[in-house]
């Protein structure tokens, strides 16, 4: 380990000396590589970067990053990371989590971190299965999923991470897929630039327990019809020949052929919309009825938790100077015994 200048870093500089122990074919490998590329391209200072995780396959991530890292306990990474950020707001803090870790055991911390808008980048590897415990259904598994703990099919209705995040007042929310590496890099870079909580859901393939869960979005022949890339200020258009669009019909979204409707009918994506209603509608677009949106759903600016925390401290000090113990001790009614 040696001190490194914050610039001039390469992808290799972000690889730790630990052997990566994910299964062959796991989507985690791609996410690790893309994030290392993004940080290198950003010229990130490895000494000021911290990765925090909980429990699960994805949560081994910090061990593979040549940064500071903290492998916490199940579901609690956002809380640990909040403590890190409060103690030192200058650090660049990332949370790596999975669908079980963030949404099941850690659901409460996930919600409250988002609403507080703590300056954390939260990357959720969603493989719709419990991997590390060997294949039980997760809170994002589809209804009816047959697993070792649901041999007759899961009777739980799944949770949709982006809907939940928007409901929890997140200020930045995006989705990418492990195999589309360029787009994944783009989304992670956007997250890295956001001030406040940036939440990224990555569709991640679990080769062992839930292979092909996202085949609709990765299959070369089908994906153009099943995925829609969000671009700020652009109409929602998809399809092999960009022949399909999305418009509002009354209260409902519908897929329309772009050449059969006036161009103005199509929804223009506005990631900065202060009203998250449209972003929520987009989050409800699910295969097979709709193409699933990829990209940045929302990117809003709101006061950031650690800024507000420090502002209150600075305000208290501006008012009465840095605290003096002698004055603290003698506050209130005192009396003297000779």
């Amino acid at each position, binding site marked *: *380990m*040696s*001190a*490194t200048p914050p610039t001039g870093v390469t992808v290799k500089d972000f690889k*730790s000396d*630990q052997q990566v122990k994910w299964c062959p074919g796991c989507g985690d490998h791609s996410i690790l590589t893309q994030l290392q590329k993004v940080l290198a391209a950003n010229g990130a200072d*490895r*000494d*000021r970067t*911290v990765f925090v995780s909980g*429990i699960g396959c994805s949560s081994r991530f*910090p*061990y593979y*990053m*040549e*940064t*500071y*890292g*903290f*492998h*916490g*306990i199940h579901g*609690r990474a*956002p*809380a*640990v*990371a*909040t*403590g*890190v*950020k*409060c*103690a*030192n707001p200058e*650090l660049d803090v990332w949370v790596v989590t999975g669908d079980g870790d963030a949404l099941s055991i850690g659901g*409460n*911390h996930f*919600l*409250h971190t988002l609403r507080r808008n703590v300056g954390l980048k939260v990357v959720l590897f969603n493989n719709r299965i419990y991997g590390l415990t060997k294949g039980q259904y997760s809170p994002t598994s589809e209804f009816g999923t047959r697993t070792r703990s649901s041999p007759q099919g899961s009777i739980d209705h799944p949770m949709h991470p982006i809907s939940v995040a928007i409901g929890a007042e997140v200020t930045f929310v995006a989705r990418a897929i492990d195999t589309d590496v360029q787009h994944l890099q783009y989304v992670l870079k956007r997250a890295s630039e956001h001030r406040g909580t940036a939440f990224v859901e990555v569709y991640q393939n679990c080769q062992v327990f839930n292979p092909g869960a996202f085949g609709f979005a990765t299959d070369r022949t089908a994906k153009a019809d099943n995925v829609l890339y969000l671009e700020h200020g652009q109409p929602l258009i998809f399809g092999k020949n960009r022949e399909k669009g999305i418009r509002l019909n009354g209260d409902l979204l519908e897929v329309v052929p772009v050449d059969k409707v006036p161009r103005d009918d199509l929804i223009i994506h506005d990631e900065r919309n202060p009203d998250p209603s449209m972003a929520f509608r987009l989050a409800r677009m699910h295969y097979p009825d709709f193409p699933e949106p990829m990209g940045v759903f929302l990117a809003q600016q709101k006061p950031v938790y650690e800024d507000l*925390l420090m502002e*209150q*401290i600075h*305000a*208290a000090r501006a*008012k009465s100077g*840095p*605290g003096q*113990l*002698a004055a*603290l*001790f*003698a*506050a*209130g*009614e*005192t*009396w*003297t*015994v*000779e």
Partner: protein
Amino acid sequence: MSTATSEKTQPGRPAPAREIDRAAVRFAGDSGDGMQLVGSQFTATSAIVGNDIATFPDYPAEIRAPLGTLAGVSGFQVNFSSHHIHTPGDRVDALIAMNPAALKANLGDLVEGGVLIVNSDEFDESNLQRAQYQTNPLEDGSLSRYQLYKIPITQQTLAAVKETGLGPRDASRCKNFYALGLAYWLYDRPLEPTRRWINSKFAKVAAVARANTLALEAGYALGETTEIFTTRYRVKPAKLAPGTYRNLTGNQATALGLITAAQLAGKPLFYGSYPITPASDILHELALHKSFDVRVFQAEDEIAAMCAVVGAAFAGAIACTGTSGPGMALKQEAIGLAVMTELPCVIVDVQRGGPSTGLPTKTEQSDLWQAVLGRNGDCPLPVLAAQSPADCFAAAIEAVRVAVKYMTPVILLTDGYIANGSEPWRVPAVRELAPIPVHHATDPATFQPYLRDANGARPWAVPGTPGLRHRIGGLEKADGAGNVCYVPENHQRMTHLRAEKVARVVQDVPAQEVFGDAEGDLLVVSWGGTFGAVRTAIEQAREKGQNVSHAHLRWLNPMPANLGAVLRRFRRVLVCELNMGQLRQLLRGAYLVDAQGLNKVQGRPFMVSEICDRIDQLLGGAA
């Protein structure tokens, strides 16, 4: 045993004052009657006039239980004295009861012949019924053993505040100040400190400030100008050690101690906590002191609070949390994480009655086992307990000092009794306080995350330090290098190293002192907030000539190095604690000593007499 009623009021000479050593007074009323407030005022004034004081606030868990019922009775007891005292007193010398329920719930604690002031306006049919009285105790002669004063406090208050124009509802809310004024007269205390307090508290509502002041003065004047009371009492200032004093509750003292420790370490204080009775006042107090770089984080739950503490410790803050029994249970997994990652932090457990939700506002000492033993795996950590309200200050500093020195979480046990109770605290000079040395690793050439120093502590390398990038977490780590390691021998070695490190804290634990003789028939052992009652009992027993000594434990893990030898020098050992015998079991396990127990779990502190009785029993009656 005189009784008097207000009908007899007429101008007359003030009663002569009788000098007494000490007195205990209890204010009792509905939880909305402001009894905690006037109790605190009486305490502050008594402290300012130089008495030693000890207080015992006792209130229901419900914010407003149904009016006039036994469930809604709130009381505040203050013991004030011209000599040094350790407890709020077993019994009270004067009881101010604002309604029948307050009378019923508290009368048993009033000494025979004691002063009993009741608000006679509240003794109507329906209130008597709510308090489950068959007949009116003010009329049926059942109170003849006390000096009963039936004062129509509500009516008197309404008359006193009439000029302010407040409506009857607001006006009658001043009646607690009327009662306070009366108590001030009875014990010859000045009104000025409370006048000042009223004016600052109600600065923005002049009418309310005026009304409360008028009520206070009217209560005082009743004693001064009528001949209702045959005697008033005077308690001279106590001979406390010279210095400047301030009245502090245990929770305030804990908060000030944590701030002080962080300042002595030259670091920000991070306090992550989830509101829980009776620990929330630490959070409230700390939130007032942000100019000391106190970073208060009100977490979404107990688990998040503890996890944020671990994160803040990793990033280099003095990281602390406060909670009580049920919250402590929730925090245990994350405390284990702090043990595994060997990060310094302090967990304050303000114990209350358990199990489960138990008795939220009542005191108990039943979290000792979960503090010492309560985590998965072999997971030792240092545990200490404060012995009195003011002692929470020193105990909090000690906890931080050990946490940082040994790189470990430390549990500080207090309890509802000392957390809410108060006593005079001698304000220390800042220069008396030793700095808390903090060493952060900085040298990449020699750094290894789990390399140990002479104390067995690993280096504290905080993110942001050039070249010290490393990864830690809950998985077992290789000795030295700190990488994830499943090698069997390594796990055994690391388990030993963690245990040895905590055992080594004994070098910071003072030798066990014994109050009384160093050997003999009976050693009474106590820990935490029962110090005052036990010490008072031992003082009384020794005055009677009984062969009994007292060992009060501050450190529960590790225990003092000489404790085994101390225990063996006595024929019998009695462990007094507010649980079913948790320390007794630990002592039996560690020292094979046949310790007996005095155990009480009623949500109330020990009475001195209960301990004296047990000593008599063990020693075969008074010597």
